[in-house]
Structures are given as C-alpha cells and as structure tokens.
C-alpha cells in the first residue's frame, strides 16, 4: 500500500498556514486507520484548504463551493463500502452550504465532515463569513463584525449529528487522533479544525481552549461553548 499518499504537487498554501499540519493529520489518520487510498473519497469544497485535492493521493473530488457534503452523501449512498469525507471551510460548510450541513446531520448520514475554520473567506482575500467572531475587523467589516458567529458544531448539535469534535490544527497529534476517530465513527461525524489564517485573521492565531476529558452525554451541554476542544459528543 502507498503509505506516503503524496502527489507530484507541492502545497501552494502560504508559509506558516495551518493547511500543512491539516494535510499531515489527514494522511496520518488514513494510515492509522489502515485505509487504502482507492477506498477513500474526499469531496472538497472550494477555498484555501480545499486546494488539498491536488496534494493527497486518494479519490479526491474537487466539487463546488458549499457542495462537498451533498456530493459525499451521494457517494456514500451509492457505495457504502467507501470511506467518505467531505471537506470545507467555514465559508463552504457554514455560509454557502449551511443547509446541507444541517440536513446531513439531521439524517445522520454516514460521512465525516472536516471543517477548516479560519473565520474568514480567505482565498477571496479576507471577507467576513458567517463564522467570523463578533467585533473582528475584516476587509468587509471595517467597524468590526456586528454578528455573533455561527458555529458548525452548534448547527450539528441542534440537528442531530452523532460525533462532534473540535481541535486546533496546531496540535498535530490530537488532530490526527480525532480525525481518525471521526472516520471510524458510524453515522454523521463532524470535526471543526480551528485553523486561523496567517494573513487575514492573524489576531486569532493563538486560539485558547479547554480540552474536555470525555464526551458529553447530552448535546445541549456544549451548545455555544466554542472554547471547548476534543471529542464533545460520540454516540
């Protein structure tokens, strides 16, 4: 088996981008779970992290902005033997594709959603997204963002996802372990990867959070607690 998973293409991310660590974590999780690249499908959104389609050797499918989840649902329904992962940023999963997130979570579709949250539309040069923290100044919120951020995990909490986790990309080991567990999970799993942008959301680069020792028994317990890291729910 190809345990390298690399392609002829080198990543095009900015120096210091969390994407490098994310790419390594995904590769390690796939190897850890002993999955063959031919049996793993990742459907990608459009955005910085989604450029990973060119950097990892498995069945990668660059879809459209906001649509990685429904494509993944179709793949998994058609061939349940495949391991199916949908990737997207906060723009793709929470803004453009929020409807798909809520419904895949409601149906508990057997896919893993990996959300690279950099709190901003980065590849389009730094506009506020629905996940941008309140008060943050961006190129489209010059006086500070007036809205409370929408969280992918909160949306999944109220709609029914059965595995929910949050991890900072800077912690490669934890991120690898959580992604590996999310992939193994039967049912809808979602991992929010805290990955502030080195260009557009520099002020968020040192995220602070509190690791939970074990998952909560009730989803409502961590609703709105965006400072909690680890596997928050696993049923």
């Amino acid at each position, binding site marked *: 088996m190809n345990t390298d998973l690399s392609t002829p293409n080198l990543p095009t991310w900015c120096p210091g981008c969390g994407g490098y660590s994310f790419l390594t974590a995904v590769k390690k999780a796939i190897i850890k779970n002993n999955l063959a690249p031919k049996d793993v499908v990742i459907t990608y959104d459009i955005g910085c992290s989604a450029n990973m*389609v060119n950097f990892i050797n498995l069945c990668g499918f660059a879809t459209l902005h906001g649509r990685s989840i*429904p494509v993944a649902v179709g793949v998994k329904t058609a061939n349940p033997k*495949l391991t199916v992962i949908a990737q997207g940023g906060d723009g793709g999963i929470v803004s453009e594709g929020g409807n798909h997130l809520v419904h895949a979570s409601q149906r508990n579709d057997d896919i893993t959603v990996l959300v690279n949250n950099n709190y901003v539309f980065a590849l389009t040069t730094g506009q506020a997204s629905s996940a941008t923290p309140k008060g943050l100044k961006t190129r489209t919120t010059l006086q500070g963002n007036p809205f409370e951020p929408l969280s992918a995990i909160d949306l999944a909490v109220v709609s029914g996802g059965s595995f929910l986790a949050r991890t900072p990309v800077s912690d490669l080991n934890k991120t690898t372990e959580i992604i590996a567990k999310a992939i193994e999970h039967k049912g809808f799993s979602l991992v929010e990867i805290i990955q502030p942008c080195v260009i557009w959301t520099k002020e968020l680069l040192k995220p602070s959070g509190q690791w939970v020792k074990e998952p909560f028994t009730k989803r409502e317990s961590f609703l709105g607690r965006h400072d909690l890291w680890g596997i928050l729910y696993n049923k």
Partner: protein
Amino acid sequence: MERYALKISGPAGAGVMQAGETLSKALNRLGFFTLVYPEYPSRIRGGDNHIQIIFSQKPFLTPREKIDILLAFGKKNFEEHKGELKENGLGFESSEIGLEKIAEEIGNPLVINTAGLGFLWSVLGFKREILEEQVNKDFEDKPKVLDLNLKAVFQGFGLNQKESFKIETPKTKKEIENYSGNEILTKAILNADCRFASIYPMTPINSILTLLSDREIKLFRPEDEIAGIMAAIGASYAGKRSMVATSGGGFSLMVEGLGLAGMAEIPLVLVLGQRTGPSTGMATFSSQADLNFAINAGHGEFPRIVLTPGDAEELYRLGLEAFNLAERYQVPVILMTDKYLAENRLSILKDVLGKIKVKIDRGKLAEGKELDGYKRYEFSLDGISKRAFPGQTAFITNSYEHNEYGFSDDDSQNRQKMMEKRAKKLESLKGGFEIFGKKGAKTFLVGWGSTKEILLDLIDDFPQLGYLHFWRPWPFPKEVKTILKEAEKVIVIEGNFSGQLASLLEKETELKTEKILKDDGRPLFYHEIRERLRKAER
C-alpha cells in the same frame, strides 16, 4: 375517424382524476384509444379539477375546445364548463341526476365518482359489464370498497333512462394499455438499471418520486434541488447510474451542478418536466418555454444532450437511451417532458413498450492493467476517456480545469486541449429528428416534445402536409436543412411565447420560418390549431 370528447369536472378531492383513469381504461377494454388530459389548480381540496377524455378508434389524439358530454359534480362546476358543450352535446350536473343521493344511500360519499361513471357509461350506450370489469380491477386491492363501488356503478347506470349516444365500438379486438407519461418514464428509469435518484417534489414530476418510492432504487429525498443534483453526481461518480427530476424552478437551482457534471465529465440524467413559468408561474399548467434554458444553462461552455420525447413510445425509448448516452459520452443528458406529457394518460397497443429493447451501454470503463497509472481525463481520438470508480484505484476528479490526471491546471495549452477534448465527445452524434406526412411537402410543420401526438393527429386529416419532429434538438442536427429547404413554407409550432425552436432553427439553418405559438398553460386544441394553420398557410 370519429373522435369523442368527454369532460368530468369537480372540486379537488371528488375523485375526478381517478374517474378519468377508470373510464379511459374501460374504453380501452372496448378497443378505443384514449387520451386523458387533466387540468387542475394548485390546491388539494375544492376548486375545479377537470379532465378531458378523448377517445377514438385511431391513436394520437388532441384535446378539444368543444365537448360532446359534460359531467359536473356540483352546480358551480357545471356552470364553469357548460359553455364548452357542442350544440348537440349533453351536459349533466350531479345533484340534478341524483348522484349525491346514490352515494348517500350507499353510505359513502366517496363513491359518487363511480356512480357518475356508471351514468356516463349508460349515456355512451356501452355494456355495463365492461365498466364493471374495470372497477373490479381498480379496486382489487381494496375489497372493502369494491362492493360499494360496484353498487354505485349499477345504480348510476340505472339513472339514465333516455339519452344515449350510438357509438360504434371497434370490430377488431385490440389490446390497449394506458399509462401516464410519468408512469412510462418511471418504467424506463427502472429498466435502464438506474440505481440512484434524488428528487425534490415539484409539479409535474411528483409522481415519478412516489412511483419510485417502493422500488429497488436508492432514492434520496434531498433538502433542496442543489443537494439533489450534487448527490446524484456523487452517486454517478461512485459508479451507479443516477438521475434527478425537477421542473424549471428546481432546474434553476441545479444549474451549477449541470456545469460540474459537464466539467468533471460525470454522466447524469436530468428529467426536466416543464411547467408554466417564469418563476412560480402557473404551477399546474404546461409549457414548452425551457428549451433555450436547457440548451444554454450554465456558465462556461460544455457539451450536453437535450432529449425531447413526444409520445408514449418515444418517452420510453429515450428514457432508456438517456442513461446510455450519459455514460457513453460522460455528459449531462436533459430529458424534457412537460406537464402535458407527464400527467396525461396515454394509450398504446399492448406490448409496444415491451418490444423496445435498448441494451445497457456503460461506455468506456478502465479495467485491470489500465488502472495502473490511470488518467481520468486521458486524451483520446474521440475525446472520451475511460472511467474508473472509487474502490478501483485512487484518482482525481475535478471541477477546476485539470490535466489528464485530474490535477488542477491553469496552463494555456492544456486548457485549449481540454476544451477541445470535451467538445469533441458529441461530434459523432447523428440524427435526432423524425419525418412524418408527405414527402417533399410544400408546407412543413416543425415541432418538438409533447406536440408530437397533436401534430400527428392533425396531419392525419391534412395529408398534404409534411411534419418534422425533433426528439433531440441539441446538439442540433444540422442535416434537417437539406429536408426543410425544399419546402415553400416551414411552420414551427411550439408551446412558448417567443418561438424558441424557431429561433434555433433559423440560426442553425438560415431558413425562414413562420410560427404558431401558444403559452397560456393549455395545450393546442384541435380546432384552434387547424384555424391557425389555415391562416399561416395563406
């Protein structure tokens, strides 16, 4: 050949649609061909649902403006339609003839429609037993209400004492089947071995969704049409024949997915059941105004196939072939119907559909050694690359412009070659139309899609006319020019406001056309089209 037109009208919920099915099937038992044209507002109870049943010993029938017999459930419905009766036509209102009373006596208000059928059957002068056979068949799964309905037929039949048509019944016994357009298309979908369908409800394709619901197919009920087309693309990519079905509004949402299927070269069948637009339009009425949209939808340029079947047989054949075309050329295939074709009940000789065999062709597939160093978008003479599926090998599929391996690629030369590769895929397609009527006719009628039966009915009475029907207007078959340029007059007949096929035809062939257009939600009625044709021919 004589054609008869009946109309049954009643509030939604009165069983008018079911009555149409039962009556037309009973007429088929006598050897008549039938066409059932339903018209109804967008509501579940009340209002005015009505159906027109046209029957004759000849196939290919057209709705009529003037009717021979009207049966209305309720005074309001009677008033609404009595003006449509021919001079010697017969109109009946349910309470006047005592249908409500029969239902009351039987103790179930729902049997009023069957009592009405019994009455109509007697007015038509046919043997009661034939209708009873059909009622037996329709209620074979519901033994509890079968007896009540048979009683209703008997009593309704007995109400009629005097008026009776003398209609000659067919001498030779023909076995005739009777399906809605959506039923025929659903048969094709299943027989084409389609394994995945995602459908968000929308008139006029709703019954495809309900008919597929208890069948051996993975049915995805998406949150919206965008998710619908994306999931179908995912399923097709994963190796299963896949489809979506929608109407214009849903198709508007699906357009980004259409482009994805074009760029990533994912086979996909998209059933587009047209209804009156723009926007919500007249939700339960028919239209042929989405031809331009189907041909041009999406940003950028990518190949696609547009199929426009016009009758039961063609709907079934193209329903089967759509999946082959999608997989052979790795393109989206848009199969267009409309409310008229989808929800009408059509009659055909038994076994016609059964005799149509289309062998399943999944196109070029990579196998064995070809999977080593596999290139998803490998250049080839015909532009078509071999497909592989996840589970066979690792490979990249891409909505970005890509190189042969599928990796994103902005290189100028690669871009040019990839555009040429995709465009080349459909170059070998030939045909897409059929000629009827007189060879070398001075006047040629041209149509597409659901006007086919109407125009075949018409040229039956006007044998001096030629008629060209497009069943695949895109890619446009330019060879029609050699046929049409011989005619003195080309009259394009279509159900839209601006003449979309006419414009396409003029652009592609540089021929001049005359137009007969109609976009009021209703079909082209028989006498209307005759009259307009007479004017256009002048």
